[in-house]
């Protein structure tokens, strides 16, 4: 056992709690984020119940007040983006996979990695504690636009938004440490022989996401610092009464906020890029093309932010330029998506659970992708902005990477993480229930939005135009979908726990895959590789002509 920059620990605390091992830290992130996903999901349940039968008591929660609803939707968005999507896709998967996939013993900075997780856990505690302070948690939307969020007098609570800013700042500090670690590790710790273009696409996507995060987060932190000072030090950066400018915050927020979408999406794509070749026994279609289109996506993602602000009061002449960049970003995304679909062409496809989730990810994501064109067109955005159409769009765009890619990843790498296989029957049941209920939940929101249903209201019945049987029926369907979606996760949780103890022993390479994480034991020991691997080729050499076996691992010579 060699390779890790630190000794193998012996005490329980050092091994499982204050661990330096990237695999343990990955699991810490994983379990924390799954717990937060349950919190976020329950908030969604309460919201959906309220919308389906406004003013009635929600079982397990009680009455939903307008203020309570604002908190629910704010915290649902905040938790799902910052405490679920990012920790699952970046921190958990990135931490687990990057060192294994590049043949390294651990991260470049194991101590920084541990600090990253504990900072993240602290941020989680701060966020959750904000539910219990006087005035309640933040209630101004996950975007926390000032002036609403800028003073306690306007937003109702003295503590909620302040703790929200603090929690998000801590969370960003955690991901800043993580991102620096990821990039440094991928650049400096690759196994001998592994050139940049031999890295699995997952590693590329993690690095690209980290770079995008690092380059976009600075302005948001600047904006958040000013917001915090507005609340605590009496500055008036966003307060027009003192010459401040509320729209300034929106620019700083979305300069980060839009790239953030790709911070989440790219690792989601990375999962798909790993799974499709394995279950079609075919190389990924156009490896370099995907890498380049990812880089172009990353660059373009910094030039689109104002599409969130077409009707926010910015100079209307800015709309069309930002619309052009926004719509252009569909091209590199289409390149990647089509390359994934082309990978299936003439493959030998096996529908194991990870593959089902990967295909489901693409199928659902396409709808999220194309409806982005509607929102990105300023004239159409006038109508659909801040309606359920947008809500439907971004759930269709984010649920594929956050939910489908993540679940595909768990089913795929579970054997590597825990040494045992998950149950296929329960996995398939989980997939079909999930993809059905995702659509039942979110499809109705497109027509709801087109009917003129604005988002973030607690009671549609207050409006004559929305007090119709159609609106009520669509809300009912979406609510049934949301409950179904939550219940559909039960087979997954059972499967997850049951397989820990009763799953079939996986062996090092149950999927007959080519990348380096499969070249070691399941789960890998401390230091990952008993013998440091050497890399001879790219990551997706399946069905190479003239060979008996249909996979040729990266570390096998000849």
């Amino acid at each position, binding site marked *: 056992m060699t390779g890790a920059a630190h000794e193998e620990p012996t005490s329980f605390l050092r091994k499982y709690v204050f661990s330096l091992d990237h695999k343990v830290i990955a699991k810490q992130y994983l379990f924390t984020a799954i717990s937060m996903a349950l919190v976020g999901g329950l908030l969604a349940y309460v919201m959906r119940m309220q919308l389906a039968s406004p003013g009635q008591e929600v079982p397990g929660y009680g009455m939903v007040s307008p203020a309570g609803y604002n908190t629910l939707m704010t915290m649902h968005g905040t938790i799902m983006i910052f405490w679920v999507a990012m920790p699952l896709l970046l921190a958990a998967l990135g931490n687990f996979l990057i060192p294994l996939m590049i043949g390294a013993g651990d991260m470049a900075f194991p101590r920084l990695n541990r600090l990253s997780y504990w900072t993240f856990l602290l941020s989680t505690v701060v966020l959750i504690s904000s539910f219990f302070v006087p005035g309640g948690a933040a209630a101004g939307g996950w975007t926390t636009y000032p002036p609403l969020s800028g003073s306690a007098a306007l937003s109702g609570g003295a503590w909620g938004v302040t703790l929200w800013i603090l929690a998000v700042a801590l969370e960003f500090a955690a991901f800043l440490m993580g991102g620096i670690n990821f990039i440094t590790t991928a650049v400096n710790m690759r196994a001998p022989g592994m050139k940049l273009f031999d890295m699995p696409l997952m590693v590329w996507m993690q690095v690209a996401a980290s770079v995008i995060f690092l380059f976009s987060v600075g302005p948001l932190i600047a904006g958040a610092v000013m917001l915090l000072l507005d609340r605590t030090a009496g500055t008036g950066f966003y307060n027009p009464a003192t010459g401040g400018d509320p729209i300034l915050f929106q620019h700083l927020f979305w300069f980060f906020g839009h790239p953030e979408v790709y911070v989440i999406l790219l690792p989601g794509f990375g999962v798909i890029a790993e799974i499709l070749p394995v279950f079609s026994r075919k190389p990924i279609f156009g*490896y370099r093309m995907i890498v380049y289109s990812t880089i172009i996506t990353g660059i373009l993602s910094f030039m689109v932010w104002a599409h969130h602000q077409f009707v926010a009061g910015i100079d209307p002449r800015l709309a069309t330029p930002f619309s052009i960049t926004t719509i252009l970003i569909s091209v590199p995304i289409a390149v990647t998506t089509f390359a994934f679909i082309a990978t299936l062409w003439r493959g030998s496809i096996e529908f194991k659970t990870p593959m089902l989730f990967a295909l489901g990810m693409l199928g659902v994501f396409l709808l999220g992708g194309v409806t982005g064109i509607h929102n990105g067109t300023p004239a159409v955005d006038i109508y659909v902005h801040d309606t359920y159409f947008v809500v439907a769009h971004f759930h269709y765009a984010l649920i594929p990477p956050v939910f489908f890619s993540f679940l595909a990843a768990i089913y795929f790498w579970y054997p590597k993480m825990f040494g045992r296989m998950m149950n296929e029957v329960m996995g398939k049941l989980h997939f079909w229930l999930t993809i059905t209920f995702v659509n039942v939940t979110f499809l109705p929101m497109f027509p709801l939005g087109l009917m003129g249903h604005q988002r973030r209201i607690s009671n549609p019945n207050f409006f004559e135009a929305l007090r119709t049987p159609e609106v009520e029926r669509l809300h009912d369907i979406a609510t049934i979908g949301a409950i179904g979606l939550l219940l559909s996760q039960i087979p997954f949780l059972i499967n997850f726990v049951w397989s820990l103890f009763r799953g079939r022993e996986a062996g090092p390479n149950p999927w007959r895959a080519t990348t380096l994480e499969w070249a070691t034991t399941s789960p890998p020991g401390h230091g990952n590789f008993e013998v440091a691997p050497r890399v001879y080729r790219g990551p997706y050499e399946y069905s190479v002509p003239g060979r008996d076996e249909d996979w040729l691992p990266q570390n096998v010579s000849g």
Partner: protein
Amino acid sequence: MLNWFPEAASSYAGDIDRLFVFITVVVGVFFLLAEAALVFFSLRYRRTEKRKAAYIPARTLRSMAWVLVPCAVILGFDLVIDAVAAPVWNEVKQTLPAADERVRIQGEQWAWRFTYPGPDGLFDTEDDFQLVNEMHVPLDAVVVFELTSKDVLHSLWVPALRLKQDAVPGRMIRGWFKATREGRYEVPCAEICGLGHTLMKAILVVEPPETYREWLRSKTQTAARAEVGHREEQG
């Protein structure tokens, strides 16, 4: 799909709706083709005993063309969408036709306040009058509004008119609409603005010019009476 939209009631609503349909058709075709390819390939190339997978890493431009050419077509359609959409935006938000009627709109926690210039047609004069959560405009007249906010962000949202514009404290944003259908329309706030966000709603009454004049007259009389009363009190 269009029957989901509230019935169009402004001069530019039709343009926005048509643009929506156009984009839906264009992206819909690509969406269906991509989904069809995804499903077809998945089923057509599912694992069988006989067939082995082909080795197609697509390292050459020639083979990448299978993906790049469709994407080039998408790029072309993207530019078409941009070109078709720009004039509509231009019409709605970047031009300001000559005003027939002018009104100031202020969002506040949690109501819309409308200020009319009164008979002299000038704001900030004695005959101005204000209404809360109720706005009247004449049919087929260009209404130019000056939108602002007292406290936090709000968003003026009239679904029937296809009109949405955020109200920003400290900024005055001009916009316009021409209502083309009589009726009473709801004016919610579309931007989260605190506790009473849901309850923030005004009524826009679009009425024939004669009715509107009459309403205006009755309002200015009340305003004048109130003004006189106010002065007497002070005097």
